[in-house]
């Protein structure tokens, strides 16, 4: 189906009678071995969908593409990561910062408008991350020669040998590849500290972990470096490295006419199934602190959960029988089975149980429910 679409795209660009802008011949100009696109959108799901679309539909055997993009505040996790382990989902919900799972590997990053994303598209044969990063480091050295900029073996870019200003991830598909990296121009570093910590304690998982690094912004060391100046330097360097005859083009990643099918790619990336349902199986083991008010009393309980495909696969709540009868804690655990690992879903599932139980145990049961919900990130 994909190769059919590729053929269709070529036919469409050549034959359809429409008011195509010059960007419609974007991918078809054979004299342009390198192409630079800038996304007009700051929506992470639209931008990730555009990456997927280009990877799937554009013939990259003879050419390469650089896509420049940035997002409104978002946390982006790697293909095989655990969002609950990597970021503080409750804090993100309060701050209305979404989490997105990308299709490339690697670790978790925080994006905001002060972070530049660069995606280098090429054929699998031409896949060369070092060459791509050289575009970035050479561009930076040209505009600010006083900065100490180096790419490492891990393909991070460090400033002053210490601070990470760029991280890299990539994806290899049937015939093509993309390598994308971040570049910290003027991002909100305090947000990173708050948001990139686990949602809940006690997670045990073999998902790919992130490697935390101290980060810094380019503007912390070169305050006069403007965003536009940075972009222009990168585009110029890409041109000289990869050969470019036309200037960069702005594109709207939500333009279904230009990128047919991009809308459904965006929907998939935005959906719960991809973002949370794709999480590798993990377990949560943690101690719960229970309390009662009248009379004041405390108790510790143990929670053990297995989460598969983002849903509770098994659940054990061990509460001392002197605190709550076993049948009650057991039925709480039972109520969570099959539910999404999510405080809202847990609260909804448990509230039904709460309604059934009035009487002296109600406050303790309610407390246990609250504590359980809080443990679900």
């Amino acid at each position, binding site marked *: 189906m994909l190769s059919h679409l590729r053929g269709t795209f070529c036919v469409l660009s050549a034959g359809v009678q429409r008011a195509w802008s010059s960007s419609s011949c974007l991918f078809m100009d054979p004299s342009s071995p390198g192409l630079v696109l800038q996304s007009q959108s700051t929506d992470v799901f639209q931008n990730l969908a555009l990456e997927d679309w280009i990877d799937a539909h554009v013939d990259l055997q003879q050419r390469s593409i650089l896509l420049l993009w940035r997002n409104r505040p978002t946390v982006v996790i*790697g*293909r*095989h990561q655990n969002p609950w382990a990597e970021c503080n989902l409750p804090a993100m919900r309060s701050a209305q910062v979404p989490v997105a799972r990308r*299709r*490339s*590997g690697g670790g978790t990053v925080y994006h905001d408008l002060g972070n530049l994303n660069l995606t280098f598209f090429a054929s699998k044969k031409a*896949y060369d991350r070092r060459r791509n990063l050289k575009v970035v480091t050479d561009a930076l050295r040209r505009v600010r020669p006083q900065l100490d900029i180096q790419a490492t073996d891990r393909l991070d870019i460090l400033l002053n040998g210490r601070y990470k200003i760029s991280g890299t*991830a*990539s*994806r*290899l*598909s*049937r015939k093509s*590849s993309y*390598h994308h990296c971040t570049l910290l121009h003027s991002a909100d570093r305090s947000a990173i500290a708050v948001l990139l910590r686990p949602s809940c304690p006690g997670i045990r998982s*073999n*998902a*790919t972990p992130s490697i935390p690094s101290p980060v810094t912004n380019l503007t912390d060391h070169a305050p006069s470096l403007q965003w536009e100046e940075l972009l222009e330097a990168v585009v110029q360097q890409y041109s000289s490295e990869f050969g470019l005859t036309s200037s960069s083009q702005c594109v709207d990643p939500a333009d279904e006419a230009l990128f047919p099918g991009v809308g459904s790619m965006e929907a998939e990336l935005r959906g719960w199934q991809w973002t949370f349902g794709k999480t*590798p*199986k993990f377990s949560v083991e943690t101690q719960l602190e229970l309390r009662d008010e009248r009379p004041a009393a405390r108790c510790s309980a143990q929670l053990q959960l297995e989460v598969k*495909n983002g849903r509770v696969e098994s659940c054990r709540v061990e509460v001392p029988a002197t605190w709550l009868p076993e049948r009650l804690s057991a039925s709480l655990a039972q109520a969570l089975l099959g539910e999404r690992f999510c405080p809202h879903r847990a609260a909804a599932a448990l509230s039904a149980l709460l309604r059934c139980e009035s009487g002296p145990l109600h406050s303790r049961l309610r407390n246990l429910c609250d504590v359980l919900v809080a443990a679900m990130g």
Partner: protein
Amino acid sequence: MKMAMRAALRCLSVNFSPRLPQLSSAAQVSATRLLCRSGAPRTLSTTSGQCTALKFTEKHEWVLVESGIGTVGISNYAQEALGDVVYCGLPEVGQKLEQLDECGALESVKAASELYSPLTGEVTAINTELAENPGLVNKSCYADGWLIKMTIERPEELDRLMDQPAYDKFIKSLEE
């Protein structure tokens, strides 16, 4: 007889341990032929269904069919190109796949590489060892590093895959 077959396979798997130098792909396949040769002692054959030699896709996956079930892995060429595998994202047991469907990804330091189903069929098993030990894909790509097992809904798809000599030729053409 099936048990004897599995025991024989396990013995061979031991030979593919990382202690020994990596077997060339030719040696790997002749190991397979040892299992599957008609005229082999009765303990190595099954009454129902043939065991075939390794078949390969252009995406460098191999398929080994036993009693109508295909075991799938990636070739030595692929594991070398990938580098150290750090995570295996595999499909679910019961998942139905069409040939060439994206069905997971292998993550290495190099990239997340998409996995494509070599055949149309249903996943009957996944290699759960890979969760704790993804490096098996590098160390033992033809044996302990197998990825999934699946039914074979369209045997004609299998016929169209490359045999060992054709695959060896294919790799040579890529390297030029």
